[in-house]
């Protein structure tokens, strides 16, 4: 029972890292399919396509940041803190914004990137606009990251 708090906290961190990573992989996959389609016909658009394909990858990093913060908070790199199940649950809850928002937003950002890649295949000069559209989806992934960071830093008091 004394390890339940720690288990809950680590489960939250694992979900944050895992779900955000899965979302990013799916998003990058979708954008990659679109990029491959365009580059089959026009290999010169590689740089532009790569830029747009990489966008949904950021959510995976956001998830990793939260994993790292939880591990630091729990002093996992030394002797782990002993925390109650309520504290563990609080950390678990703090991880959820990133886990859910990054998972979903990465997939949708991948779809938007795929559409933006198709846009630059027809209008190569509109690459700036094409970058803005998927970047709008990023806003909510960033907000979820900030929410998780704030919750971890100020919402959960240990010790």
């Amino acid at each position, binding site marked *: 029972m004394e390890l339940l708090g720690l288990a809950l906290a680590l489960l939250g961190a694992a979900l944050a890292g895992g779900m955000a990573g899965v979302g990013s992989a799916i998003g990058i996959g979708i954008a990659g*399919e*679109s*990029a*491959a389609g365009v580059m089959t016909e026009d290999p010169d658009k590689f740089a532009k396509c790569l830029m747009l394909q990489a966008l949904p990858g950021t959510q995976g990093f956001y998830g990793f940041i939260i994993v790292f913060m939880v591990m630091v908070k729990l002093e996992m790199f030394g002797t782990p803190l002993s925390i109650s199940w309520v504290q563990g649950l609080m950390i678990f809850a703090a991880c959820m914004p990133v886990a859910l928002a990054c998972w979903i937003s990465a997939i949708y950002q991948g779809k938007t990137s795929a559409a933006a890649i*198709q846009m630059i295949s027809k209008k190569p000069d509109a690459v700036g606009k094409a970058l803005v559209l998927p970047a709008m989806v990023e806003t909510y992934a960033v907000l979820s990251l900030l929410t998780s960071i704030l919750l971890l830093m100020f919402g959960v008091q240990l010790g």
Partner: protein
Amino acid sequence: MSYVYAVARLKAMENRFLDASFFSRLIDSATLEEALKSLGETVYGQWISGSAPAEFDQVIDRELIASCEDLERFVPDRELLDIYRMPHDFNNVKVILKSLFRAREGGERRYDLLSALGAVDTERLIMALEGEEYGLLPYGLADVIPHCWTLWEQTKNTKDIDLMLDGAMFAAMRKTAEALGIPEVVRWVERRIDAENLGNAARLARMNTDPAAALPFFHNGGTIRPADAAKLLGEPLESWGKALSHTDLGAVFEGIQDRSDMQATLCDISKALSDSLIRVLEKAKYSASAPGNVILYLLQKEEEARSLRIALVCVANGLNREFARRLLSHAR
């Protein structure tokens, strides 16, 4: 392969469509050789080398066939391409059947009108029809062909056989579209049937055909019932828009005026119906993974080929350039 990949590739391929300024230059060419020189700088160029100038029709066909073959390699559902190519297959069946009818009456078999644009190999069609191995035929033709023979033996009327085959083709198109389960493709097939029915109605109206006698010319499967299409024959062309206002096709006829030049009116109707077929798929244009983009691409390619044929025929025969411009429906 996924539709995200396929649609992205199609969008990139669309960049190679010939634009309005190219067609304008083509029409202004002084000779066919000059026009083909311009065409040689486009994607059609790969098929021009070694062809005589008068063979431009084959050049255009080769490009269309190559496009279909290209798409077959990366479009996830081959059935989508089958739906588009089915009219060419049925046209080939008509050619072979008519040739066999002629042969039965002591005439010669002629297969020079067969099109390579169909999804089914023409040799396979000839073998199945000549050998009466109808089980080898696709699209439910195994059931239809014996009826065609019976009808021909009874009436010797090839027009009735054409109508029977058209009906079978639309049924097969609809069945394939429904099996695919892609709503926009089902809608397109319905619109295709409606367009055929309305095109027939316009031609029959011009010939003052009695609505009751015209019923066999209309096919099931569209949004407009054959009986409703036949009723249009009793109405002046100007009121067709109103009569069809409950359907999406009402707007198509709103701008159509019954002109004294019958050919020009039919040409306007044909263009409006052809545009409406593209419009029904236009929503797909805004989706990065809509399968409708495959049909849309093929329709645009077909439109381009048609425009190219018009332009080259006009140049080859020294026809009036303004007349050619009016005929060109291509406008990107």
